[in-house]
């Protein structure tokens, strides 16, 4: 009974590169005769998301490293980050949901209120990756990216909870706010110096930020003064919202939230007297909810649902109605749901070829047709399952 998975994990034999590159060449010879490696069937040279179209569906494009560093200090799934480190390149697959959203973004009228897009699908089907793909597009277009990696991180496991200075009924989360501000700064370095604040913010008796100062200063203020970081976040969001709504604004704002159902779920944070914190009492969540309302123009809101991090939801729930709940659904109401299915045949094939090309599949039987069928069966063409299974081959 020899099939892939009964064989021990220590069987990662070192296969000679000659052999594998020979195999890779066979694949290329099929499709592209004239061009030499590293181009092959499953890769495309089109690195600009704006120029990608249906022709490139199922193919991988490499993110230029200049873009990767600033864009994604946070926001990618952990496993994918490890993969990027291993392969030394960040490859995204061009898939229909992301392409759809990008096409809408291209055609949208930005004088109207911001459109809300929602990625939903079963666990591990690639919602976060689609979100990151769309964010990459916005980045290349020069938009300001407000990317919240996982809203669930803000409603659970909070070590420090301070009563807010601005509004005593609310609670601050200084640690999360500072980390987020730092990442925000990395992403939007070049734009922060250009955009100016529109109002004056007073933090304490001695510190304040005047009108007309570059946003970068505001952000630095938040990072250095940990106590007021949550308020800085709130101020930042309000400012950006106001500015992008103005007709003379020269930038557009994209708000990308992963795990948006956290905003309307429950939280596990407890106050000192052991009573649960209501979500409205958290500054970060409160401000984020204000952003999610589409009363501002000149930008877009792209979100995903996530069951994995969510609290008190059943494992089988993946539809927007189930995960957002009544209030969430009503607040998000006119939104464009985009379903993210598992891999199609073509996409699965291309992912498999990518792993082969990257010499990730070491097992001899994984290179056969039968092996491919086994992989497809066992992972049921779910991207994360496939990744996990190939991880030990």
């Amino acid at each position, binding site marked *: 009974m020899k099939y892939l*998975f009964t064989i021990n994990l220590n069987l990662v034999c070192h296969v000679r590169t000659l052999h594998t590159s020979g195999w890779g060449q066979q694949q290329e010879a099929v499709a592209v005769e004239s061009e030499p490696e590293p181009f092959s069937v499953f890769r495309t040279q089109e690195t600009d998301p704006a120029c990608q179209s249906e022709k490139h569906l199922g193919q991988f494009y490499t993110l230029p490293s200049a873009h990767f560093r600033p864009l994604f200090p946070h926001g990618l799934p952990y496993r994918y980050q490890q993969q990027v480190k291993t392969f030394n390149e960040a490859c995204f697959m061009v898939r229909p949901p992301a392409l759809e959203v990008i096409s809408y973004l291209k055609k949208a009228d930005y004088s109207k209120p911001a459109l809300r897009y929602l990625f939903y699908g079963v666990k591990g089907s690639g919602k976060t990756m689609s979100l990151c793909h769309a964010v990459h597009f916005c980045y290349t277009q020069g938009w300001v990216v407000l990317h919240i990696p996982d809203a669930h991180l803000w409603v659970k496991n909070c070590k420090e909870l301070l009563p807010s200075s601005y509004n005593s009924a609310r609670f601050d989360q200084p640690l999360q706010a500072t980390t987020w501000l730092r990442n925000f700064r990395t992403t939007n370095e070049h734009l922060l110096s250009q955009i100016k604040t529109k109002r004056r913010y007073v933090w304490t008796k001695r510190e304040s930020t005047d009108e007309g100062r570059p946003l970068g200063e505001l952000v630095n203020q938040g990072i250095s003064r940990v106590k007021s970081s949550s308020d800085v976040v709130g101020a930042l969001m309000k400012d950006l919202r106001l500015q992008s709504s103005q007709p003379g604004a020269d930038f557009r704002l994209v708000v990308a939230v992963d795990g948006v159902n956290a905003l309307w779920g429950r939280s596990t944070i407890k106050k000192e007297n052991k009573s649960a914190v209501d979500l409205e009492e958290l500054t970060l969540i409160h401000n984020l909810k204000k952003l999610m309302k589409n009363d501002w123009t000149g930008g877009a809101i792209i979100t995903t649902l996530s069951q994995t991090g969510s609290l008190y939801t059943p494992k*089988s729930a993946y539809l927007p109605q189930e995960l957002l709940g009544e209030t969430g659904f009503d607040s998000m109401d006119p939104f464009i749901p985009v379903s993210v299915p598992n891999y199609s045949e073509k996409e699965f094939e291309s992912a498999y070829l990518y792993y082969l090309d990257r010499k990730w599949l070491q097992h001899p039987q994984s290179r056969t047709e039968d092996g491919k*069928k086994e992989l497809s*069966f066992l992972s*049921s063409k779910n991207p994360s399952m496939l990744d996990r299974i190939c991880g030990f081959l």
Partner: protein
Amino acid sequence: MAASCVRTVGSFLGKCGNCSSSLNTVTSQLSRQVLSRQICVSTALKKNLAAGGPEKFTVEFIQKQVEEFDIGKRHLANMMGEDPENFTQEDIDRSIAYLFPSGLFEKKARPLMKLIFFPLHEAVQWGADGRPFHFLFYTGKQSYYSLMHKLYSKILNIEKHQDRMRAKGLFSQDTKEISLDTSRWLTKEELEVLLVETISSNNYDRFIQLMERLLSMPYCNMEEEFVLHYRRPLEARSKKQMVPVPERDDKGVAFSTSDGRRKTSNSSVVLRDCGSGRITVNGQEYLHYFPVLQDREQLMFPLQFMGLLGRFDLQCTVSGGGRSSQAGALRLAISRALLSFLSEGEQETMRQAGLLTPDPRVRERKKPGQEGARRKFTWKKR
């Protein structure tokens, strides 16, 4: 002598068959011996009947009980309002269960009205004067040697018959043969039971040799009945796997259904010959129902073994048991359903791979005095 058991309402039966015939021969021999050997009966040796102890199970006793059972059966039939002539054992069981409802868990402890047969045990082999009945008693294995003598005398009979036929000129080699295909010789243990005494393997071999010699002679069909008495019918050796019949549903897609069981899980699978490789378990996605890779591997194994991974569509239902036993039950059901799409040779390979064998392992019961099924309590020296 045969021993019988009384555990019923009023009467009991002794199972007939070989018992009675050998009994008959023994008793006839006995009676003959008694008649020929008993020279005188001393009045002093007349036994006190009351001091005889519990009643001995003689043949007359058994026959009397048989008659009583029949009468009782007729009474029971009348009581239940059914036909006394066609009252079978199943009807008796049903009626007794109705008239005497019992809450006992052990089925063998419940009221029973049935013929029960116990193996023969040795009765006293010598008479009042101490002289044994059988002339071969002092050989130690009287029934065995008497059987051998009888067999040999039959062989001699057949030879005499042959000589007579040859003398008449009617000798022919091709007489009717006894059909031996559907039966086998008695095993040594069975022969011991029949003869009510132990025989050695040497003796057994000699017996079989003699039988074979008898069968090798042309006119052996004279003793057919005698020979067949010592043969047992062969059980159906090839229990062929019931291959589920593939049907066609409305769209013309061939599908087959089958069940599978493992530990306490029951499953049923509908295997469709569609072309996609989609699987649904209890209405859910199978990735969601079996998050563990091991269970999915179990499901994959039959299809992957035959190389038919992407061809079929599975619609499964499973209940009971745990994660692993549900996967095992589904695997069995899939392999059975797959049989109808395979050729003979492939079915044979599946059988040899062990895909079609239901796993007999079930949870072993916990015993008293132990902590678990096998684990004993901690042993303390003092």
